[in-house]
């Protein structure tokens, strides 16, 4: 844990602040709309239920009026995204490369990805939950802001390939999409397979859609890694701990899809639990296999 007193650090903290503020304003907007929580303090998330009605839909109030507080939350969220982009570009200029070389830079990329992904999901897949995306966005800033060092090291020979950026970026996109899937899956576990609002997919369906959309980038990450490994290390699969974890992740997804095919929405809570398991295995692959001393392999770089 170290606070970064640099320009980059300042940008990260500012992004974090905006995301967090957007989340708090969203909570406030919903508290204003929902009569049962009006008396609750806006920041009290313990009492506040998960997105029963997503904050976006509260833009239009009960009387048909536009809720200015909710709009303000979205403006803050978009401003956070702009700052995240500025942070990312600043880092890119500083390292003179695509900043995806280590965990620090991978999280910077996820800070940027969260807003476009939550907008795409809202627009095209009828999956909401931006309020929680705002919180997740602020949470993603913790890693580069306080935990990882911003050390710059030029790319080692093994990392110099055109496959590197697509490989990491694909995994980052899949991870952010799976974060959204997990939020929906937790909703299923808490409220059951209900729809959070009019014109919105039911929570189980939303989970399934998110998992479906994240599967191609996940596969792409795995396979680009395979091809890269063939050109760098001579084997496309070398049974390295990180590779084994990523295979485990992929097989968990495969199990989810087959189970969903077999039973459909018959057991929504089971489906949600498996989707959450997918996310847990992704996180294990991302952190544990990289950082733990238990796995000594060719992947231990970050």
């Amino acid at each position: 844990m170290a606070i970064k007193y640099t320009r980059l650090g300042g940008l990260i903290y500012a992004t974090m602040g905006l995301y967090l503020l957007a989340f708090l304003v969203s909570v406030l907007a919903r508290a204003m709309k929902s009569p049962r929580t009006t008396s609750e303090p806006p920041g009290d998330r313990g009492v506040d239920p998960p997105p029963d009605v997503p904050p976006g839909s509260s833009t239009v109030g009960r009387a048909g009026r536009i809720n200015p507080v909710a709009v303000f939350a979205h403006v803050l969220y978009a401003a956070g995204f702009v700052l995240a982009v500025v942070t990312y570009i600043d880092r890119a200029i500083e390292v003179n490369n695509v900043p995806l070389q280590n965990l620090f830079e991978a999280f910077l990329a996820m800070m940027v990805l969260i807003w476009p992904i939550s907008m795409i999901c809202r627009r095209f897949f009828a999956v909401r939950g931006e309020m929680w995306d705002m919180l997740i966005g602020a949470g993603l800033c913790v890693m580069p802001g306080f935990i990882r060092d911003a050390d710059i090291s030029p790319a080692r020979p093994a990392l110099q390939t055109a496959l590197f950026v697509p490989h990491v970026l694909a995994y980052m996109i899949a991870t952010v999409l799976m974060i959204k899937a997990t939020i929906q899956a937790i909703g299923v576990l808490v409220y059951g397979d209900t729809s959070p609002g009019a014109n919105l997919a039911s929570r189980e369906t939303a989970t399934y859609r998110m998992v479906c959309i994240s599967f191609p980038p996940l596969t792409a990450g795995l396979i680009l890694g395979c091809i890269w490994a063939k050109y760098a290390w001579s084997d496309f699969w070398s049974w390295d701990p990180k590779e084994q974890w990523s295979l485990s992740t992929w097989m968990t997804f495969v199990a989810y899809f087959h189970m969903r095919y077999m039973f459909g929405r018959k057991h929504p809570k089971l489906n949600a639990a498996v989707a959450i398991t997918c996310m847990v295995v992704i996180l294990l692959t991302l952190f544990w296999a990289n950082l733990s001393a238990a796995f000594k392999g060719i992947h231990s770089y970050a």
Partner: protein
Amino acid sequence: MRHMVKVRRVLLWVTLVGSVNLAQLSALSAFIGEAKAWVLFNSVPLMLAWLALTGMLIAGLVLFPRLVRCPGLLAMHVGCVLTLLGGMLGSKAGMKIMDAWRDHKRVFKGAMQLYDGRPKRNVTDEREQQFDVLPFEVRCERCWIEYYPYEHKLSVQVTETVKTGRWESVTEHAPHDGDHSGPDHAGHVREVFKEKLAVESEVKRFKWKLNAWRDLPLTDGVKIRVTGFRIQEPVTEPFLLLPSPSRHAPPRKVPARVGQQFGIGSSHAGMLVGRIRARRWVRWEPHPTEPGQIRLVPDDRPGGSPAVVVEESLLRGRTYVYTQKIADGLGKDAVLIPARYVPQAEAKKATGAEQPGPVIVTPLRGHDKPLVVPAEVGQDFTFMPTRSGTRRLIGRIRKLCFVRLESDPDSPEKRRVIEAEGSEVGAEPAVEIDVVEPRRTENAYAPGVTARLRKMGQPVSMVYIPADDPQKMRGMQRPVITFEVTRRRMPGIKEYWALLSELQRGGGPDVKTFLRLLSALRIRTGEKTITISKGRPSPPVALDFLYDSQAQWDRAGRPYVFAADKPPVKEYNSLLVIRKDDREVARSVIEVNHPMHYGGYHFYQSGFDEEDLAYTYISVKSDAGWLIALIGVLTLMGGTFLHFWVEPVWRAAKGRRGGSPDEPGSPAVEGGG
């Protein structure tokens, strides 16, 4: 039909359980490490499981028409089958089975350590216990490392040691107390330069940002700024590589400049004195008189080889001893060559020349000023003695020693030179010089031609290395630091005198403060460059130009030592040449991520001798099954995008239902359940 439904349900259940099991096994195998995981997943039970998995995928394609109807699902499942097939064909067991249909056994995987230019066929396994043989030979013609320019951060180690000392009168006794055979056991008074470390060495390791100023320890107001750090390319000047004077010393390099002189050997065994006359192009032809030999003929037409023409004289020389008093050189055969040896303490006074070390002073005919040559072992010089006519002589300093002069018992007017220990009474510093008279022959040297001169009783070899032969320039890359030294302010003269008077008043001299002031006064400013040997932190290089090198108290010291880490490696490269049936069949530069492919094998850059670039490690892997696996993984990847991204968008575009695409796998055939 009901039968079919049952089979499908069973297959789905087996798939579900199987994928969960594989996920668990895969995660567990992360705990046992790469090598054990390889053994586990290549063991017989797992081999059967892989086969079963392939069979299940094929059965799924047969039993579920939807898998064939949906192009995305078809691509995913066919891709999996192909990937598994490719993996199985490329596995050790798969290759063994496939070798049964081949006429030769293929090498599965291995490593090669390729030395400079030497071809190799053998491939070792990881433990270097088994050897396989490739059907062709691999040679590394050249290997080199590219470094990043040192932009990001620079780590500099600064060591400061300041030596100080003064002349002291000491009384010397005989070497052993009980031994009365010494020259005078009452003791002699002589002056000794007592050296001591006035300041403890300080080692500081700085993280030095490029172009950032820093204070140096022990200097007042002196700042240093590193302006550049790079790997210096090898010298581009051509040179002659001379045999090393001893077994432990490296070969001597002489720049191949016209007029350059050098000597090989000593006067006892005979001495080869050379002078480079010209650099020419030559070609080789059979020697006209000596059968089986070749000779080099000058030929400036294109296609020739670069060479250097050396004027040589091979002589038995004579050794002369000079001291400060003996100006005439007492040789064994009494040819007098006037020269005088001046040891370092008085060198400046005696010659008026800017020579810091001991020198040899010899009169030069036709000149007012004498010739002054630094007295360093191995130093060659030409001189024209006045008393021995017009002959040009070549001298080479053989050693620095101490001698004692004694009267010759046979003829008392003559004196005899006897070697002595430095501590003996009456011993004085002396120098031995080999003097030869050149008799000319001419020889040409080209790369690849090593002249062997056996006339001197031992083979002597000389190699000419033209500048544009990068292979021979290996190991000559040097990291170089450029930096700027400035004084923020000059120490005022008042401050200086105040300090001196304080020192005179007593109370013990504060040497550290004094030296700090002194060093600040003596630091030269401006842009400097130092070269660090081999890029290793040690041995470091003295930065003696920071101080005035004539300052008495630090002449022997190393005021500051800079050592830098190597800059990060950008790329390892090896130029591989493959020969089959004495013909070159392939040639390619390999680097990490860019293997070479030839004859069913991939060659990977996997290791390097970073210090001397003497060898490169190549790993060799058979390409069996790779193409099938590559098609498989690409099909699988394409299938996922097609099924989960393209198809929903396509369907949504055709009939926009509620602004959201239909669920990709929504027709849930619930296994008939």
